[in-house]
């Protein structure tokens, strides 16, 4: 038997030992979940693969798990539901079965780590663990006890998701309607609670998070079930979505999982320790810089296996995006989506799964940016200073913040065009945002760091001169002023935070030696300003100021192929270098060479003819801002 989805539901009402009270709703809950997940049109589990144990003793559970082990050669997903008493002893978590004694939990309970040993033997790609426990002694306050190395360390070759709800005495009353957690899960499965997702399928995290929220609201914050998970082998759907609709973004969720026994599965499991480490990291550490090296190692291993990279990244995205919303950076979900798209850039033309995943992520990015922009618009309406966060450091970081917001807005417009969807809502948000930006942030919106270049390229090519209350013209003129005033010396790309104060001080003191040390030559921002000023009616203004930039070097880096554009170092490509005052005396001189040498190079690059590659390249430049998507100026 190949590729089964297996369900085991355990409900334990009867306890032999007087140390554990008799319960009344646990068996009923196990039966309800068993029926909900294995019967009906939305079920993904065949009824012959669904097992039920009511008030078993330990030996019965062992026997059942052994039977399942023997019966299946390969399991796509194994879902275990437990309702009954649970407890902690010696820093470990135990399920209490019929013959368990509360005073001998370690020796008579069924340890979670033992369960994971079985999971390991089952060779399932993914295990879902749902525990709705009544605690005789204390509650599980956090996932720490479940995610201990002796438990999770065994999950080397499978993905795992948890939903753990626990409350004292919830099954004790005869009138009990069942466990709070189970009740909430059933409400999600029936569609009574809307997860917000319109995808065709839901996984345990999709179902568990709104259920946990419901429990928290019902108990007025008294109980918050823990939900945590990681998909190693692609998205692992548990149940059909009662609220599914034909949203293009849902194509992301249609990607099938990867079998752990397949070459792709083996390539992933070899890397699973690093992946788990990544998933354990606090959310604020899940930045593109942290994710990219680990995930790209996996993607590289999957490079020669058809469609594996797309399925893998799709699954990882599922695991991570649910947590991204709680990040202090409100654009973290956008950056996560873009990181995933950038990871698939290399395979964007050879694999349909990668292409589909990039297009799905692009839809997500456009929708998410629309939300984020309107949030900012509302914030600015309430308080015009709402884009400021720090004191002195914001002298440097405010222009970075504004360029990123507008850069992503511009990128969303480009992505919407690539996808053939309307950009009207984005444009409206930009229009609304531009007035307070022009009024309050005119002198601090741009011109501090070379890192701004890709964002301004994305923004300034996405709008027309008359759009957004002349914000484009304001940005270009602010950049010109900053470049002229500091002789083209903006802070070097990816300047470390330790050097930011030094750079600010050097600019304040007009200290040429320090400015030189902390800036970069040649400058891509200067190249951008020269190429884009005509579009924003500032060519003449820049021509008159060009003598102040005499001797400054500028650079346009064009890769040989944009498929490589997300690599930390793009090895192949030409740096087109110019020097002001040497064959460059006017804007037209640079534009002419751009037309003669740079544009032809891009026209010859066949990688740019593919929409998924262009989307991936835009995403790569906005998460790694030491590269500029110059092809946007060529369109």
């Amino acid at each position: 038997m190949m590729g089964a989805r297996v369900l085991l539901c355990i409900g334990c009402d009867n306890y032999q030992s007087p140390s554990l009270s008799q319960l009344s709703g646990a068996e009923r809950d196990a039966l309800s979940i068993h029926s909900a997940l294995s019967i009906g049109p939305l079920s993904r589990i065949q009824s012959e693969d669904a097992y039920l144990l009511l008030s078993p003793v330990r030996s019965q559970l062992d026997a059942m798990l052994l039977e399942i082990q023997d019966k299946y050669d390969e399991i796509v997903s194994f879902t275990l539901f437990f309702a009954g008493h649970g407890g902690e002893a010696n820093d470990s978590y135990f399920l209490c079965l019929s013959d368990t004694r509360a005073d001998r939990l370690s020796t008579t309970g069924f340890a979670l780590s033992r369960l994971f040993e079985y999971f390991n033997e089952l060779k399932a790609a993914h295990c879902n663990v749902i525990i709705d426990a009544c605690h005789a002694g204390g509650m599980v306050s956090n996932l720490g006890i479940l995610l201990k190395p002796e438990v999770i360390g065994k999950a080397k070759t499978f993905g795992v998701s948890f939903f753990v709800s626990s409350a004292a005495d919830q099954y004790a009353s005869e009138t009990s309607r069942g466990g709070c957690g189970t009740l909430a899960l059933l409400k999600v499965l029936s569609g009574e609670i809307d997860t917000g997702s319109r995808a065709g399928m839901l996984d345990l995290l999709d179902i568990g998070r709104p259920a946990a929220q419901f429990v928290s609201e019902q108990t007025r914050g008294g109980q918050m079930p823990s939900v945590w998970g990681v998909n190693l082998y692609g998205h692992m759907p548990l149940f059909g979505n009662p609220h599914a609709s034909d949203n293009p973004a849902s194509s992301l969720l249609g990607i099938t999982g990867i079998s752990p026994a397949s070459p792709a599965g083996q390539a992933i499991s070899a890397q699973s320790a690093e992946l788990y480490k990544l998933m354990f990291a606090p959310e604020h550490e899940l930045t593109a810089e942290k994710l990219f090296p680990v995930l790209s190692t996996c993607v590289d291993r999957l490079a020669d296996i058809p469609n594996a990279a797309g399925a893998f990244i799709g699954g990882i995205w599922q695991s991570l995006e649910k947590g991204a919303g709680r990040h202090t950076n409100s654009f973290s979900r956008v950056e996560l989506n873009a990181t995933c798209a950038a990871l698939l850039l290399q395979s964007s033309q050879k694999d349909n799964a990668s292409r589909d995943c990039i297009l799905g992520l692009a839809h997500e990015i456009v929708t998410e940016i629309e939300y984020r922009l309107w949030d900012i618009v509302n914030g600015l309406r309430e308080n015009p200073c709402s884009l400021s966060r720090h004191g002195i450091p914001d002298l440097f970081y405010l222009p970075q913040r504004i360029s990123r917001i507008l850069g992503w807005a511009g990128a969303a417009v480009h992505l919407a065009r690539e996808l053939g969807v309307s950009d009207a809502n984005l444009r409206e948000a930009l229009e609304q945002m531009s007035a307070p930006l022009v009024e309050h942030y005119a002198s601090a919106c741009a011109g501090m760091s070379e890192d701004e270049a890709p964002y301004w390229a994305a923004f300034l090519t996405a709008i027309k001169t008359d759009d957004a209350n002349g914000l484009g013209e304001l940005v270009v003129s602010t950049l010109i002023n900053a470049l002229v005033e500091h002789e083209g010396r903006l802070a070097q790309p990816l300047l470390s935070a330790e050097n930011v104060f030094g750079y600010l001080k050097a600019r304040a003191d007009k200290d040429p030696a320090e400015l030189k040390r902390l800036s970069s030559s040649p400058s891509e921002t200067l190249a951008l300003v020269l190429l884009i000023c005509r579009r924003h009616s500032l060519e003449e203004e820049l021509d008159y100021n060009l003598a102040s930039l005499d001797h400054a070097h500028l650079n346009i880096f064009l890769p040989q192929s944009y498929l490589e554009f997300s690599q930390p170092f793009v090895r192949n490509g030409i740096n087109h270098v110019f020097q002001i005052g040497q064959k460059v005396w006017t804007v037209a001189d640079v534009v002419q060479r751009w037309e003669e040498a740079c544009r032809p190079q891009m026209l010859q690059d066949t990688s740019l003819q593919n929409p998924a590659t262009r989307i991936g390249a835009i995403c790569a430049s906005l998460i790694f801002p030491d590269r500029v998507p110059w092809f946007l100026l060529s369109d």
Partner: protein
Amino acid sequence: MRDKAHPFPFDAQAEIVMKTFMQATGEKLNRAQRQVSGGDNVQRFSHGGSWQSHHSYDPDRVDQMQTIEHETRLRFEDIMGGRLDVIERTVDEISSSMADSYAKAYYKMLSDTCEEHGNVIDGSASSLGEQMLKAIETVEYSVDRDGQVSLPEFRMHPSLAKRLHTDPSLHDPELLARVEEVKKIKITQALAAEAARKSKFRSRGE
């Protein structure tokens, strides 16, 4: 060896110390490179293995980056012997070897460019004094960012430098007077060329 378990490995700390060591070596190398090519001409690229200088004599030419590398061996005995002088020796070895390779590549690039554009002087026919005068006549003077004329610099082999002090043809008063005259003309020409260059920028009065 690094993959095996090790008692008190101090790997992370060692990495930081090594980073600092490489930084010190890099600084020394930078100083040596500045002596060869000056500090203003350094450009840093984040990506790519080639570049095209659109402001050069040959704007359509694409040049490839060259890698300069050096391998050094450290003896365990030196470390086990607590020999601190190994630090200075290794820094010197790496930085001077790489600086030498850099200087060779730099002078080769200068030489190739001069050969390519016919900007060479035949040294076999005339005296050293005549050759120097011809070099001064051939070379174009440049004007720095502050508007000052930079006199040409002569880079030569130590044996030739020694001859400069002793060769009588270089002390001929007539030759010295001609050198001064050429210098004056060259300076005037350089200032005129700089003024012409600057006039190519647009100004509001136009």
